[in-house]
């Protein structure tokens, strides 16, 4: 608490001193942070590596985009819808996926996400196909860069506080019990399937909120939001920042986005730089990754 109150104060005051571009970059960082934290709920608390979280991010984004453009909803009011619809998709995908484990869970979530991507990518009549939905009017205070910054910060903060409470709740302990020893958890009366599914749905809902924010940031929605490389971004952010710590994915996401903005301003070869950084970290600083030193590997 001692560290993050001043940090929060700094983040609240920053837009007053920064020009527009750095504010926008930070906002993108918050959005990825929320997405990565959502992913990390499944990765760390459930011990399952999802390669399909882009599906919920994308569903949240398209829910907001479609409600604004087709039904004329004000942007801010689409947030509950984005969360609920993303949670419903997570319920459907999770119902089938959380029964499997390890590499099969990873592959199944990937398959479902790619299935949704393929539909969004081709369904021109409804989702705009590969053109996406451009020029989405964003009203309210989210219309300005500073307003969106505070909205993203607020949602990230709320999401993290929620995850913090979840981590310490009996529900959080039950999730980790299932992760660490399924047979024992079952023997003391916990339902592994129900717990995993609940965790997965909550994670999907949070990812949907991140997708909702992305729509305002880009004023558009694109099929890329559901593509598997988007899922990879959350994975990279969570693992780089340290999945065992509540703020790990946030730190990883901010580092990822800030580094990305810095490199992209200088060269078009951002993937190359990111790849080299990842190679270097994995090979030479395995402990700097993941905060693994303190983490029991549930899937090992």
């Amino acid at each position, binding site marked *: 608490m001692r560290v993050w109150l001043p940090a929060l104060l700094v983040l609240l005051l920053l837009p007053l001193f920064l020009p527009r571009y750095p504010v926008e970059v930070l906002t993108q960082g918050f959005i990825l942070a929320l997405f990565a934290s959502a992913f990390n709920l499944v*990765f760390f608390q459930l011990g399952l*590596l999802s390669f399909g979280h882009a599906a919920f991010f994308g569903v949240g984004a398209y829910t907001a985009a479609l409600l604004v453009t087709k039904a004329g909803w004000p942007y801010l009011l689409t947030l509950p819808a984005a969360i609920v619809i993303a949670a419903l998709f997570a319920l459907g995908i999770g119902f*089938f996926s959380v029964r*499997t484990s*390890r*590499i*099969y869970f*990873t*592959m*199944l979530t*990937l*398959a*479902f996400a*790619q*299935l949704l991507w*393929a*539909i969004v990518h*081709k*369904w*021109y009549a409804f989702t705009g196909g590969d053109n996406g939905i451009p020029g989405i009017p964003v009203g309210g205070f989210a219309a300005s860069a500073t307003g969106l910054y505070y909205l993203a910060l607020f949602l990230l903060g709320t999401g993290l506080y929620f995850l913090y409470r979840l981590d310490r709740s009996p529900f959080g302990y039950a999730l980790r019990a299932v992760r660490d020893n399924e047979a024992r958890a079952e023997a003391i009366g916990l339902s592994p399937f129900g717990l995993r599914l609940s965790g997965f749905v909550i994670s999907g809902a949070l990812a949907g909120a991140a997708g909702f924010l992305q729509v305002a940031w880009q004023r558009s929605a694109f099929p890329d939001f559901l593509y*598997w*490389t988007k899922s*990879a971004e959350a*994975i*990279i952010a969570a*693992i780089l920042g340290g999945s065992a710590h509540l703020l790990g994915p946030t730190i990883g996401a901010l580092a990822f986005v800030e580094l990305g903005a810095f490199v992209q301003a200088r060269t078009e*070869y951002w*993937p*190359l730089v*990111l*790849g*080299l950084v*990842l*190679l270097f970290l*994995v*090979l030479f600083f*395995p402990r700097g*990754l*993941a905060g*693994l030193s303190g983490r029991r*590997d549930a*899937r*090992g």
Partner: protein
Amino acid sequence: MGFDLGFFVQQFLTGLATASTLFLLAVGLSLIFGALGIVNFAHGSFYMLGAYLLFWVVRGNPEGLWWGMAVVAAIGLVLGALVERIFLRPVYPRPEHHQILLTYALLLVIEDGVKILFGSAYKSLGPPSALSMPVWILGAPFPAYYLVQILLAAAVAMLLWLLLKRTRVGLWIRAVTQDREMLEALGVPVPRLLTGVFALGIALAALGGAATLPMQTVSPGVAVEAVISAFIVVVVGGLGSIWGSLLGAFLIGEIQAFGVMIWPEFSIAFVYLLMAVVLLVRPFGLLGRPPAVRT
């Protein structure tokens, strides 16, 4: 529209040609997962690299295709061995997500590396002049080069089968998927064996990529699509199974060929649907073995 046998056969053979490419791409991924226990996200990148290398080796001249493909496969072998030695060997004892992060990093590096080396424009190469005319099968035209792709995949499948079932090294490769420690205890040079398997898998992916160049253009973006296709094939067929890769490639090639006729816009969705159904009904793949306890 009446039933047209010629058209049906044409679609079937087109599906078979797609399947041939998918098999070359996926069988290496499957072998590597079986022996090394690593999900290689960079597999599609080597496939894409293979196509670029062919273009570079033959300097855009379609007549050099045959020796060009041999050279590309050889480069793939060397490149695969180097990558295994330098990057993969240190991460074998690490958790799965470190390995995934590492191969994903390779994917990023290769994608941009190709842009720097070859430019980001599309590259294409027609088929050699001897194969540029279509063959007529039951009154329907069919690109002659597709037959080459089908024969190439069939030959590779046969050679792999001979390698795995009829040679000592093949016996080791099958054994290492079961119990690495026991094999080490028996005095088999396991590290060298793993290098060999990875190099072979990469060479096959590069060959597969090179073999598509006469029919398809290549761009750096091909890699991320290819690796997903390869995943689907091995997941449907069974991770670690050669025949599974063949069956998975066949099913997916044909689903794409006929799916286009039924519902053109969403033919790719059929493929993901097949994968999801197989994972639900038989999570270890159609021809895969239920996961053994690994030590």
